[in-house]
């Protein structure tokens, strides 16, 4: 043991009494029995400070002036019962263990008392069991308190996390929103420079202006996408009955130019109706089909969209015959602004799949890619067939 640890040990030692003091409230109307119980307590490992209550009024008064660590109560108290003391403790919202110390009451009553919340039951003719019963009761209470504290700490952490998440959302939105205006100035005036002064400076100057215009425009498109991404998190997910067959149809209509140009074939198998935010779910289909077209292989793209019921979820699959995604990128493709190719190979900001993931997760589902390098890609995602409660709250 280190020196400092020994020091701490010494500080914790109690100089007067090595025994912990325990405040016991005795609810017992027989003086002789009180004497017996106190004598038994004196033998144990606790330093006892005891008080006595004989009537409900007295009991109420006692627990109000000082909350005991433990209540030892007789069952039959003439006009009232030990279990009534338990009710009083509950009414005062106090978690104090109560042990019945009583003559024989019969198994039925004993069981009934335990059911009501009495911590233990000790017979007066076997008082030797009392210290063990007290230890057990105090240990149980300690565990309850620890559990309560842990739960409270957990609640605080959850709240902190939620707040920090909200702050981040707000930050992303405000930052990208406020960045737009100064950036537009840069973009517009470099463009103006390019238009009005092309050929009037030297060749280098024209090139520099082009770089500046290109950079500003790319930044504008990144901010535009960041805002779109952030909006998915901010918008309330309003769930309505939607028909996925129709949503895919709408997505295909929006992608008509790309479909015609690439000669893509989109196969729609039977798709379900479910509760979802229609425009967001359409966006998911559109991004996935759009990707399948963009990352096509040497053959024209063939895209198959299907769904099957799996327990409480619908399991969707969007499969293509494109260039595929290497297994090591199966996770990172969903990260915002993550791209697997250069802009020259494939244009884009790396936002589409991040938005898909966000939308699916906000609907209580998950999305993954089945990596099959060189032989097409399959995206799979789930959507609850029944509405999960956390999404329902947003409606």
């Amino acid at each position: 043991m280190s020196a400092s640890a020994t020091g701490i040990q010494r500080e914790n030692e109690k100089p007067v009494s090595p025994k912990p003091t325990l405040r016991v409230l005795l609810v017992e109307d027989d003086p002789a029995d009180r004497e017996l119980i106190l004598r038994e307590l004196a033998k144990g490992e606790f330093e006892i400070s005891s008080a006595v209550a004989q009537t409900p009024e007295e009991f109420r008064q006692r627990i109000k002036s000082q909350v005991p660590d433990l209540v030892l109560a007789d069952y039959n108290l003439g006009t009232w019962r030990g279990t009534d003391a338990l009710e009083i403790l509950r009414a005062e919202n106090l978690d104090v263990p109560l042990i019945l110390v009583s003559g024989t009451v019969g198994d039925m009553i004993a069981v009934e008392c335990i059911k009501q919340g009495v911590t233990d039951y000790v017979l007066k003719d076997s008082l030797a069991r009392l210290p063990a019963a007290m230890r057990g009761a105090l240990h149980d209470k300690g565990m309850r308190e620890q559990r309560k504290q842990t739960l409270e700490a957990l609640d605080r952490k959850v709240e902190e996390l939620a707040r920090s998440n909200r702050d981040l959302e707000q930050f992303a939105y405000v930052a990208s929103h406020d960045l737009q205006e100064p950036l537009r100035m840069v973009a517009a005036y470099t463009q103006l420079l390019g238009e009005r002064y092309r050929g009037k400076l030297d060749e280098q100057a024209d090139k520099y202006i082009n770089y500046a215009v290109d950079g500003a425009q790319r930044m504008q498109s990144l901010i535009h996408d960041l805002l779109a991404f952030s909006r998915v998190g901010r918008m309330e997910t309003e769930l309505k009955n939607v028909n996925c067959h129709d949503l895919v149809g709408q997505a295909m209509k929006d992608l008509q130019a790309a479909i015609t140009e690439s000669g893509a074939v989109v196969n729609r198998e039977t798709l379900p109706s479910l509760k979802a935010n229609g425009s967001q779910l359409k966006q998911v289909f559109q991004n996935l089909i759009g990707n399948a077209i963009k990352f096509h292989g040497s053959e024209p793209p063939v895209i198959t969209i299907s769904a099957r019921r799996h327990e409480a979820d619908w399991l969707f699959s969007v499969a293509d015959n494109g260039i595929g995604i290497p297994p090591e990128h199966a996770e990172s493709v969903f990260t915002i602004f993550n791209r697997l190719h250069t802009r020259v190979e494939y244009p884009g900001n790396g936002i589409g799949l991040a938005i898909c993931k966000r939308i699916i997760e906000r609907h209580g589902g998950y999305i993954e890619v089945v990596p099959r390098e060189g032989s097409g890609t399959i995206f799979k995602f789930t959507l609850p067939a029944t509405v999960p409660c956390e999404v329902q709250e947003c409606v």
Partner: protein
Amino acid sequence: MIPTTAEILLVDDNPADLDLTIDALKQSKWPSNVSTVCDGAQALAFLHREGKYDSAQRPNLVLLDLNLPKKDGRAVLANIKSNPTLRRIPIVMFSTSQAPPDIEGCYGLGANSYVSKPATLEAWNAAIQSVNEFWIGCAWLPREENQ
């Protein structure tokens, strides 16, 4: 449709945006006299012909930014649209914001249209040309009331 030179008031706190708009208006086939003010209080003084603006021309068209110092665009819009004389002037909101609450709020206050400031020079010019072409070149505007 007005035969003479149109009076246009631009309200914007960003001189770079003002210049882009003035530049775009100069390229239009419809001649216009452009006045500019850079906050909401000045805009109202101009329209109510107060202080140094006592001899200001009533504009045929106002392009009004949303986020302005002193009095923001919504307050200016609300003031104009609750004034029996000024409310006849077409107000085109011209703002970076594309947020539905901003757009809906302005129409709710009586804005005549809402145009979001485009991100590129080309689109900016096109937007200003469209606004000018419609309000000055195509639409019939109220005659100015004699005071």
